[in-house]
């Protein structure tokens, strides 16, 4: 790829971002006055695309974006107010812009006149103000500043408290451009009244020949909020030049003249903030990051193995070596966290496509729906974000199609006409929770149960709790929609969602109140690569129980446990009966030659549907973060096993799949009772002798 091609590539990648940004804002537009910042964004997105298109001579794109930009400029300057239907028009115009960009990228021109109609409509919209569109200008780039800025900088006390030093900042400014400084000492009190921790000084700094405003703002990035900062371009008028430079040779010049300027105008302060918030980023191919993640995973294992074998040799006399090892351990961990963080992305990229989905769908369904987003900044592993797209789309469609009532029904039920679908995300306990909720009709337990019985999922007359009934909607082959619509599927609904979420190591639950609405909650791991686990010992084999599933651990008194006639046992804990899963027999471990522990330890875990079961183990060996290795790479999946992990001693350990185990127990106790029985004499025999 030559340089030119590479620039082009970069341009298209930027276009993608700009178009995304455009759409984010465009779907929030409403008739009447709009948020000026958003309108600025719209204009800037289109403008930047035009500028790039001009450079690469994509003529159609230039012409189109120019006209589009003109209208957006009118809107943002307040000369044109959006009428009904205009917001939709702008969204559609954005789609056409997207088409043109795609066409330019692939080199295949869209058919002639694809954008003609839209151009007409845009022009018509623009002409409502009577302002004629200006001809396309060849030079589309921003007006050049001459690179001279004046910076008014006044540290607060808080900035000094965080050990920031103005002198260092001013030094750093020198790297940005030539500077001349005026210090304002006017606020200095008498020496006797001077508080050494207070900041009294402020400075006016002229920076000449700076690349741009951002370069200056970047210097002050870390003290943002702890100081008053104004960065203003100096007009190109030459009269000030020289004068200020000579007047202010050193930091310590007293200058009463700057007194007035040290009072920061608040409007300008707000100006500097977005510039500082702009972060530098590079694009990296995902495969490279994945290789890095893998390598660091290996490093963690290798490091743990080294530590394990060395700790046998090293004793108290080798304090230094021990410290060095500790240090290495810590750094390895930090490295791992750092690499994992590279893969983390805010959910915004995912969430931002839903306003569009909701908007389109509410038209189709003729329902009035508002989408509320919350926690878009929550960061999750990229793989998880990708895998979440389909399930979330499906769930939102479901909420809108089945959950929310029609406008007439809502009014009849005494609810506001506009239904609300809420999508929120948050971190909790090392997991990420994503909720999709609606204020619609909720699940009707009777209807759900009747449907399940009709579909043969549940036996007639089964006695189920409300939660169990609600969980039925995740069963394969269940669909509550009386009429199959093209919006949400035909019975391949929530069970597919559940499967997808399970594949990611997460679970989905539903809470619903009939007549008031439903909330679907997805609980997902932050990353697929590492897992916090509890290491347990069962008959001298070690297993990893995912920490996220563990509710508590209980050392059970014999009086708390009761054996059931058909095999298996239950434990009563604080009045609640919990089924015990005997890992030893479930995993068909042999206790031959090994003594059974005197007291049973039960690890209480929660399954997918919030059902609690107890895993009977011999010993708890402690918590550990493990790197997950799929068993399927070289073998196939096994019931009850979620994956494998390589521990510090280099041995492979199995990660237990709680739901798999819980389901397995019921099937083994019913189906292959015989093989369990044959093992029992060995166990009891061994103990008796």
């Amino acid at each position, binding site marked *: 790829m030559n340089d030119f091609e590479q620039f082009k590539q970069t341009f298209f990648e930027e276009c993608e971002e700009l178009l995304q940004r455009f759409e984010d804002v465009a779907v929030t537009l409403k008739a009447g006055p709009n948020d000026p910042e958003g309108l600025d964004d719209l204009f800037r997105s289109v403008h930047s695309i035009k500028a790039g298109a001009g450079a690469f001579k994509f003529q159609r794109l230039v012409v189109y974006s120019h006209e589009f930009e003109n209208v957006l400029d009118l809107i943002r300057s307040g000369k044109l107010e959006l009428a009904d239907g205009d917001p939709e028009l702008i969204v559609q115009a954005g789609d056409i812009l997207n088409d043109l960009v795609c066409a330019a990228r692939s080199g295949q021109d869209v058919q002639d006149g694809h954008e003609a109609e839209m151009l007409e409509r845009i022009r018509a919209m623009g002409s409502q103000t009577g302002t004629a569109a200006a001809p396309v200008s060849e030079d589309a780039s921003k007006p050049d500043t001459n690179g001279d800025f004046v910076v008014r900088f006044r540290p607060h006390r808080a900035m000094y408290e965080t050990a920031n030093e103005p002198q260092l900042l001013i030094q750093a400014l020198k790297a940005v451009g030539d500077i001349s400084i005026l210090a304002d000492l006017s606020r200095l009190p008498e020496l006797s009244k001077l508080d050494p921790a207070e900041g009294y000084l402020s400075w006016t700094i002229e920076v000449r020949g700076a690349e741009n405003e951002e370069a200056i703002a970047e210097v002050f990035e870390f003290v943002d909020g702890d100081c008053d900062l104004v960065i203003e371009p100096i007009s190109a008028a030459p009269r000030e030049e020289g004068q200020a430079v000579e007047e202010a040779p050193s930091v310590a010049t007293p200058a009463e003249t700057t007194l007035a300027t040290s009072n920061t105008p608040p409007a300008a302060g707000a100006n500097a903030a977005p510039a500082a918030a702009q972060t530098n980023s590079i694009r990296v191919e995902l495969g490279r990051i994945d290789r890095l993640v893998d390598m660091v*995973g*290996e490093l963690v*294992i290798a490091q743990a193995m080294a530590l394990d074998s060395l700790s046998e040799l090293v004793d108290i006399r080798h304090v230094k070596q021990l410290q060095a090892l500790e240090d290495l351990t810590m750094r390895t961990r930090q490295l791992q966290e750092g690499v994992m963080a590279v893969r983390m992305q805010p959910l915004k990229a995912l969430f931002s496509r839903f306003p569009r989905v909701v908007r389109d769908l509410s038209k189709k369904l003729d329902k009035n729906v508002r989408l509320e987003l919350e926690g878009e900044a929550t960061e999750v592993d990229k793989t998880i974000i990708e895998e979440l797209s389909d399930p979330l789309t499906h769930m939102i469609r479901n909420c809108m199609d089945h959950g929310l009532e029609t406008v007439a029904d809502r009014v009849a039920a005494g609810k506001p006409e506009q239904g609300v679908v809420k999508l929120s995300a948050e971190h909790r306990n090392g997991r990420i929770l994503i909720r999709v909720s609606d204020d619609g009709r909720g699940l009707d337990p009777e209807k759900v149960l009747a449907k399940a019985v009709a579909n043969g999922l549940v036996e007639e007359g089964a006695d189920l709790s409300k939660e169990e009934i609600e969980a039925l909607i995740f069963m394969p082959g269940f669909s509550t929609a009386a009429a199959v619509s093209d919006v949400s599927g035909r019975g391949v609904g929530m069970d597919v969602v559940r499967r997808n979420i399970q594949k990611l190591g997460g679970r989905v639950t539903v809470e619903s109140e009939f007549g008031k609405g439903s909330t679907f909650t997805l609980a997902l791991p932050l990353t697929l690569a590492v897992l916090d686990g509890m290491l347990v010992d069962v008959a001298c*084999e070690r297993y990893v129980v995912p920490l996220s599933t563990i509710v508590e651990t209980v050392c059970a008194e014999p009086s708390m446990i009761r054996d059931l006639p058909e095999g298996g046992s239950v434990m009563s804990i604080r009045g609640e009966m919990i089924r015990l899963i005997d890992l030893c027999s*479930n*995993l*068909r*471990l042999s206790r031959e030659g090994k003594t059974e522990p005197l007291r049973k330890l039960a690890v209480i875990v929660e399954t997918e549907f919030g059902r609690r079961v107890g895993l009977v183990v011999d010993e708890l060996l402690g918590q550990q973060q493990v790197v997950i*290795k*799929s*068993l399927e*790479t*070289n*073998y*196939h*999946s*096994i*019931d*009850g*096993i979620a994956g*494998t992990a*390589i521990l510090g001693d*280099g*041995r*492979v*350990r*199995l990660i237990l799949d709680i739901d798999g185990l819980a389901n397995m127990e019921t099937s083994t106790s019913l189906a*292959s009772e015989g*093989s369990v029985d044959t093992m029992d004499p060995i166990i009891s025999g061994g103990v008796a002798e």
Partner: protein
Amino acid sequence: MNAEQAVMAAAEAIADGKDIPADHRQYVSFAVGAEQYAVDIMSVREIKGWTDVTSLPNQPEYVRGVLNLRGAVLPIVDLQCRLGAGLTETTPRHVIVIVALSNRQVGMLVDAVSDILDVADDKIQPVPETNGREDARVLSGFLTDQEQMVAMLDLERLLGHALLEEEPAEAVGA
């Protein structure tokens, strides 16, 4: 030949590979009980001494468990047991031959590695009809001009179904 020597020999054999005539192939032979078996050297990835493995629940008896091989988790198949002669009583002198099979790697537990054989294709005798007996299906031919008859293993038939699909019917106490 112990594991280390076998690896060295295998490495040399692979390095010398250019000198082998087109109709010749090289095989790694190993002992399981009293019998000699061999596999194509190109499918052998590594040979290592036996170390304890982590057993997998509810799997066929011949799947001894999984092993960490430089960060990869490999299943280990007890060859003697797979061939119907009961579980191997393992000692540190036992050897694991790691072979590649359709993008997967699997370890075979054998008693010892015997030799690297350089064999002309036409020296390999076909397997006679044996009424579809299990242990015959997993063989691809015999080599008879050695001191002892060597059976060539068909890795796909020997290990393929164990790796790719769960077969609960065979799972326990088969």
